[in-house]
């Protein structure tokens, strides 16, 4: 069976009916979850419920289907969206710029500014203007493994996710008001000295939106 067939079968089985489990969230919460309006902690709680409750999983799929139908109705297929930029006349200019950019990048890679000793940073799509205040390359002792970051104006709280390189979650923290989180020593127990620890901060705002930092790497001592 191909991977695609397997996923199709798993999805079909997951969509099969089953009982309600526990106390179901309100339809409004499910709608907000599907629409991306829930704060991240609430979205995760909702997904935990959806994973276990067949009827709420169905309610989620209904919201997605409804949203898709109404979006399709708002922009009929084949309709030209006004104001789209016409790139065609600029193709030669773009090609020239791309070629120039290529040589600049190649020059930086082979030149004295290649920066190969920089600590790796795993970039996220949406940056929060949020920087690590742990000096790059500095290993922190496991007894006081405190990660620190620059404050984000307007942030109501922060969340931190700490994991190993293979994405095993070691520690999480939510509703942090300050810009520091000390990973409990127990969460780092058993890791060899020098193990890279990945950590990421999410800034949550009062309007329910949030922005994630890059993923930073700090070895443990």
């Amino acid at each position, binding site marked *: 069976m191909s991977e695609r067939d*397997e*996923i199709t*079968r*798993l*999805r*079909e*089985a*997951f*969509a*099969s*009916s*089953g*009982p*309600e*489990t526990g106390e179901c969230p*309100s*339809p*409004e919460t*499910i*709608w*907000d979850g599907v*629409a*991306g309006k829930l704060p*991240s902690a609430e*979205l*995760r709680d909702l*997904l*935990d419920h*959806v*994973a*276990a*409750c*067949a*009827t709420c*999983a*169905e*309610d989620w*799929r*209904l*919201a*997605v*289907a*409804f*949203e*898709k*139908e*109404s979006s399709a*109705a*708002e922009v009929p297929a084949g309709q030209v969206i006004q104001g789209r930029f016409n790139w065609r006349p600029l193709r030669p200019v773009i090609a020239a710029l791309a070629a120039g950019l290529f040589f600049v990048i190649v020059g930086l890679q082979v030149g004295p500014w290649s920066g190969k000793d920089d600590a790796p940073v*795993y970039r*996220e*799509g*949406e940056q929060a203007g949020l920087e690590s205040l742990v000096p790059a390359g500095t290993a922190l002792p496991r007894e006081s493994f405190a990660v620190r970051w620059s404050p984000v104006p307007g942030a109501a709280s922060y969340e931190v*996710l700490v994991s190993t390189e293979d*994405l095993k*979650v070691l520690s999480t923290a939510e509703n942090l008001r300050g810009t520091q989180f000390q990973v409990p020593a127990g969460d780092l127990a058993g890791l060899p000295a020098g193990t890279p620890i990945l950590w990421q901060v*999410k800034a949550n705002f009062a309007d329910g939106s*949030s922005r*994630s930092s890059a*993923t930073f790497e700090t070895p443990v001592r």
Partner: protein
Amino acid sequence: MRVPVEGDRSIVISDMHRETKGRPAEDQEDYAQLRRDLVKAVQRVCPSWMADRSDDLVQVALIRVMEIQRKSEGKSEFSAFYLKKAAYSAMIDEIRRLRRRQETTLDDEENPINPPAESPDPERATASREVGRAIRDCLGGLIPPRRHAVTLHLQGHSVPDVGRRLGWTAKKAENLVYRGLADLRGCLDSKGVHP
């Protein structure tokens, strides 16, 4: 009475409830569109015994929307987001009521939760329900990020969409979906369940 407005979408469906003043023809079309979208969603997602009642379900949702607008006495404009949310919520309330009634009826008859009409192949439907139950059990044992990733993927979301929804890069989402599915397979194997 003023109903709160969620103005996060620029498209506004205004005063659909005004019957004679304003722009009744457009209002009628707005309602008709809302009805069509809801009916299609129910028919695509819900089991057949419920999809057969999609018109009734949608009617309840539309009545709720009209009621909200009536109470606002034409003073408020509602974003499309707000109206869709209200319609969806009303419909889910009604669906939950129907589900409970169905369960009660069938419990009395010592039948499974869904009537046989759910699938043209009852044996396959029963097997699918068994696998579904095992999947839900197994998801409960996954570490949270993998559980969230796999749950969304099983709900039909693509890997990049999983990443967007959970604030992850596409690469991270791919890793978590991949590893989560591997965990799920292992768990299903250990239960002797082979989808």
